[in-house]
């Protein structure tokens, strides 16, 4: 445990009005690890994920990525929110994949991928395009570069979305239910890309309902319910021998 963890969540809380979505969540993810977060809908999984790249603001606690406070600057014992530009700078190293893909519909797959490198990192277009084509090959869509999202299947769109996130060379990838909006027969192709990514050593946090994927790929699993982490640990412990009643009840329904 000598190296700085990739992500450290230290008692973070978040509420929307009177609704306490996250209640003192503490989690740690080491570099190269894959963490899968499972749990019933409305348990705060997605909100937690969105706090990691500061798409949502936390109300209390501390959240660090590579030892750096996310979205805030500490002065004394007070946190000061970062300016949008500073927050954007932190997001450069964090890729995110959404449930509903959120590809830019007015751009081809290739144009989707080269936007951020060109606009944010000022990579020349030729270089960005070359890299984008490599990434399209990597997700198995080498021949679809010039297709618009509307002409790709859901699974293909999600693979383009993964390539788009990878184009920024992130150190950490966040997946927010990446296969939940897909037809059952298209889930496999997306999970295969994610498995390959995990094997290559990418640090990943995956909110998912795919228990098979979690069991096979995750280094650790966190079960969330009602805004708290009920149970966390290696897959064989959490899935194979759950200690908490709530975990048992949930797993009996999904396994």
């Amino acid at each position, binding site marked *: 445990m000598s190296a700085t963890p990739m992500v450290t969540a230290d008692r973070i809380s978040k509420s929307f009005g009177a609704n306490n979505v996250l209640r003192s969540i503490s989690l740690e993810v080491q570099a190269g690890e894959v963490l899968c977060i499972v749990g019933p809908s409305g348990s705060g999984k997605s909100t937690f994920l969105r706090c990691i790249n500061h798409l949502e603001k936390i109300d209390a606690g501390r959240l660090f990525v590579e030892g750096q406070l996310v979205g805030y600057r500490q002065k004394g014992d007070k946190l000061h929110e970062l300016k949008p530009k500073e927050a954007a700078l932190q997001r450069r190293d*964090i890729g995110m994949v*959404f449930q*509903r893909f*959120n590809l830019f*519909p007015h751009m081809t797959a290739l144009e989707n991928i080269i*936007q951020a490198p060109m606009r944010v990192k000022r990579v020349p277009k030729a270089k960005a395009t070359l890299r984008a084509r490599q990434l399209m090959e990597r997700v198995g869509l080498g021949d679809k570069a010039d297709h618009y*999202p509307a*002409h790709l299947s859901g699974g293909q769109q999600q693979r383009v979305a993964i390539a788009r996130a990878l184009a920024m060379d992130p150190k950490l990838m966040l997946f927010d239910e990446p296969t939940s909006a897909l037809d059952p027969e298209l889930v496999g192709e997306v999970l295969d890309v994610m498995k390959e990514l995990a094997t290559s050593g990418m640090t990943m946090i995956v909110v998912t309902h795919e228990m098979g994927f979690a069991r096979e790929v995750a280094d650790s699993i966190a079960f969330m319910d009602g805004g708290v982490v009920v149970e966390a640990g290696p897959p064989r412990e959490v899935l194979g021998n759950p200690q908490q009643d709530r975990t048992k009840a949930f797993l009996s329904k999904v396994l």
Partner: protein
Amino acid sequence: MAVPLRHPWRISIAVVLVFLLALFIVDASQRPDYGWAEVGKYLFDRRISQAAWVTLTLTIYAMFGAIVLGLLLAIMRLSPNPVVKSIAWLYLWIFRGTPVYVQLVFWGIVALIYPVFTIGIPFMTPWITIPNDVFTNLFITAVIGLALNEAAYMSEIVRAGLLSVDEGQEEASTALAMSWGQTMRYVVIPQAMKIIIPPTGNEVISMLKTTSLVAAIPLSIDLYGVSRGISAVTFTPVPLLIVASIWYLLFTSVLMVGQHFIEKRFSRGTGRRQAGPASESDPGAAAVTAAPTGNDLGGKG
């Protein structure tokens, strides 16, 4: 052999309508008040074609101003700052809630209310005093008056366009570390344009006709103003109204053809450009097609 259902009423109504139309045309061609010889004489009169040019430039300048100000107002209304938001709302309330004719009369006399612009500490002797040349130039007054009114309508069109873009688009762009400005410029506005362009074309056509109201300022160098001016001398009002109408129809027809092509281009949207299997789940495309066109804004002035 099957005999299709006959529609005797359809045919009768059509015959009656054609007969009435023919009657009107024959009558109008012989009625001296229409003065068809005068129409031919003035249709290409130099004064008329110059006035038509004035109407066209009024339309272009006023629409340009309205689009720029409308964009600003739309962004103000979407601002998280409640004061900025309320001011934009107040602007809309006033400029959409009063007739454009009344507004133009007001801008016509504003130079009397504010004869000079001053710079200095309020209620003290001003440092610099500039005579109000803006509102003494009636053409500029007309452009400002029309643009300020139209901006209220344009801002609603732009706002509808911006709101039509799925929230996930902004989120994805933000997650890719793009700034707010980059997100707007490369992601949100290009998609909003599909919603904004068609009703804006309608507004251009509408503005062309609304320019005739600059008589309220009073500016009389536009198409309608000059036609009235000539008829006041020749005592032939009807032929000159016909002349002006022919010119207005010419311009609106050209604009309608232009709009047809623009709408065709922008409805291409998320790409019926290439043949291919349509996706069953494309939230972006669904949001665009389901969005309000912002077209139904009611009548003006």
